[in-house]
C-alpha cells in the first residue's frame, strides 16, 4: 500500500510537471511583439477541430497570426456549443482584442457573439455561416454553392444518360447542408433521381459509416439498379463510398465530393470510382481574414463588406497530378 501511495504521488508530480511544461511552452510562443509594440490578443473558437479540413484552416490561421505577432489562443469544444459559448464569455472577460469563430454554426453561437458585440469586441469568422450575418465583422467562407455545383456536375458529366444517385450529407453543418441542397437541385434539374439522401450520424467516423451504408445499398440494389453516382458532402464520406463500391465490384458508379483532402486526391490519381473533389482555398480564405483583422488592429477600421465567399478548385483525373 505504501508503494502504491508513493507511485501515485510520483505520477501526480510527473503529470503536473508535464502540464506546467506545456503551459510554459505556450507562454514562450506567445511572447512575440508586433512591430508597433502592441500585441493584439486573439481568441479563436471552434467546435470541430477533429475534422481534417477544420484543423487545416485553424492551424493555418494560428500560424499566420503568430507571424503577425498576435497572441492567439485556440479553444475546441468538441461539438459542445454550450461549452463554446461559455468559453467565449471567458474570453470576453479577459478583454481580448478580437474573437475568431472557426467553422462554427452562427445559429448556435449567438449568445457568445452577442456578448462580444455588446463588449465592443469584433467577431471575425472562418467558414462560419452561409450568408451575411450582421454581428460578424467579417466572415470569409468557401463558396459552398460553387463547391457543390462543381462536384455534382462531375457526376452528371460522367453519366450523360442520367440515372439514380445517392447523396451522403451531414445537415448539422450549415455549409454541408447548403451543398446538399444545391447538389440535389442540380441532379434533379438534369433529370437524375436522388434515390436516397443519407445523413451521417457521427462525422468522426464518417468514412466507415458511409462505407457500410453504400455497401448495404449496393447489396439491395445490385447490377442495373445500382446508382450511377454517389455524391458526398465531404471527402471522408466520399472515400468510404469509394471503398464500398470497389469492395462490391460495382462498375459504373462514380463518386464526387469536396474538401480537396490528400487522401481524396490520391484516390482520384488512381483512376478508380473517385472522379472529383473540390479543393477549398484555405490559404486565400485565411489570408483575407488575417488581412481584414490586421487592418482593424493597425487602423481601427472594420471591413466595409462583412461576408466574402471564395471559390474552390475542381480536382479530377485531368489535373490531380498537380496537387
Amino acid at each position, binding site marked *: 500500500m505504501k508503494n502504491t501511495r508513493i507511485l501515485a504521488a510520483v505520477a501526480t508530480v510527473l503529470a503536473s510537471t508535464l502540464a506546467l511544461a506545456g503551459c510554459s511552452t505556450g507562454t514562450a510562443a506567445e511572447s512575440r511583439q508586433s512591430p508597433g509594440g502592441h500585441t493584439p490578443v486573439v481568441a479563436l473558437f471552434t467546435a470541430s477541430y477533429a475534422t481534417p479540413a477544420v484543423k487545416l484552416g485553424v492551424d493555418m490561421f494560428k500560424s499566420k497570426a503568430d507571424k503577425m505577432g498576435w497572441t492567439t489562443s485556440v479553444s475546441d469544444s468538441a461539438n459542445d456549443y454550450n461549452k463554446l459559448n461559455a468559453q467565449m464569455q471567458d474570453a470576453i472577460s479577459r478583454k481580448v482584442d478580437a474573437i475568431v469563430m472557426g467553422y462554427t454554426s452562427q445559429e448556435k453561437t449567438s449568445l457568445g457573439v452577442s456578448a462580444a458585440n455588446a463588449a465592443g469586441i469584433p467577431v471575425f469568422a472562418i467558414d462560419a455561416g452561409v450568408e451575411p450575418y450582421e454581428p460578424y465583422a467579417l466572415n470569409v467562407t468557401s463558396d459552398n454553392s460553387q463547391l457543390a455545383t462543381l462536384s455534382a456536375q462531375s457526376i452528371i458529366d460522367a453519366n450523360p444518360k442520367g440515372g439514380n444517385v445517392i447523396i451522403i450529407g451531414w445537415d448539422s453543418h450549415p455549409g454541408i447542408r447548403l451543398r446538399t441542397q444545391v447538389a440535389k437541385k442540380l441532379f434533379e434539374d438534369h433529370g437524375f433521381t436522388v434515390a436516397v439522401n443519407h445523413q451521417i450520424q457521427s462525422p*468522426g467516423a464518417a468514412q*466507415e459509416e458511409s462505407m*457500410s451504408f453504400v455497401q448495404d445499398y449496393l447489396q439491395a440494389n445490385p447490377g442495373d439498379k445500382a446508382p450511377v453516382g454517389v455524391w458526398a458532402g465531404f471527402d471522408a464520406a466520399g472515400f468510404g463510398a469509394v*471503398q464500398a463500391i470497389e469492395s462490391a465490384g460495382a462498375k459504373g458508379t462514380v463518386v464526387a465530393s469536396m474538401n480537396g483532402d*490528400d487522401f481524396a486526391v490520391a484516390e482520384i490519381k488512381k483512376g478508380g470510382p473517385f472522379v472529383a473533389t473540390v479543393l477549398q482555398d484555405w490559404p486565400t480564405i485565411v489570408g483575407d481574414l488575417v488581412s481584414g483583422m490586421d487592418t482593424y488592429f493597425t487602423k481601427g477600421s472594420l471591413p466595409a463588406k462583412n461576408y466574402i465567399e471564395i471559390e474552390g478548385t475542381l480536382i479530377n483525373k485531368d489535373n490531380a497530378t498537380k496537387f
Partner: protein
Amino acid sequence: MLKSGGTILGFLLLVIVFGALRPDVFLSFGNLRNVLEQVAILAIVAAVQSVVMVVGNFDLSVGATASLAGAVVAQLMISGYGITLSVLAALAVGAVVGAVNGYLTAYLRLSAFVATLATMTSVSGLTFIVTNGATLFGLPKAFMGLGQGRWLEMPNPIFVALAVSLLVWFVLRNTTLGRRWHAIGGNAEVAKLSGVNVSLMRFAAFVVAGLGSALAGIVLTSRLASATATSGDSYMLLAIAAVFLGMTISKEGQANVGGTLIGVGILGVLSNGLNIVGVSTYVQQFLTGAIIVAAVAFSRLSNKGVS
C-alpha cells in the same frame, strides 16, 4: 425460455421481419456476409469489454484505445517501419492503456468509471498528437489484407473476430483465470477470502480489454486504409450496449461472450436491415435505442416475474 431467451427471440424476430420485407436481399449470402463484416470489429471490442464486465467493471476507453492503436500502426508504417513491428507496437500501446486502467482501478481503487473516463480523455488527446489531427493514409498493400482481404470468400475481419471471441469464451469458461474472473464478478470479497488475488485478476482483465481494443483498431485501420483520431471512438457505447444486451441472455444476468455476440448481431442486423429497407438515419438511431431499452426491460421484467 422466455426468461433467458427474450433477446434471442428479439434477434430472430428482426431477422424474420427484415427477411420478409426484402427476402431477395436480406437473407442472401452476400448480405449476410456484409452484416458479419460490418460487425466484426464491434465484436472484437465487445468480446473484450465482456471480460471487464465479468469482473464487475466496465471500460469507457476501449473506443479511444482502438483509435490510438489504429493511429500508431498507421503512423509507424508511414514512417517506414515494418508491418510486424508496427502492429506489435500498436498492440503494446493497447496493453499499456489497459495496464494503466487496471492499475488505477485494481490497485489505486479508483472507480472504473472515473479511471477509464480519464484514460479515454488522455488517450484521445494522445491520438490527436499521433495523427496531428490529420487523416493518415498511404499504408502498405500487404497490411490491407488484414481488413480488406478474404479467405474462403469471407472477409478476414470476420475470422479475427471469431478467433478473439472463441479465445475469450474458452478462457472465461474453461480456465482457472476465467473462473477467478467470474468469482470476482460474483462477489469480490468472497473471492478474496477464497485466496484469489483480486487486484491482479482485475488488472489482467483491463489489460485484455486494452489489447483487444488495440487489435480492433488495427483491423479498422486496415479496413479503412486510413486512420483518424476518432475513427474507433463510436465503438465504446456500441460495445457496452452489446454486452448489456448479451447479459439479458444469462440467467444470472452476467456478461457472457455468447450473449455479447447476440447483442452485436442485433445491432448489426438492425443497422443493415434498416438501411436495406430504406429507413432514414435519424429513425434508425431512435429505433436502435428503443430496441436496446425494450430488450433489457423485457428481460428484467421476466426475471422479476419468475422470482
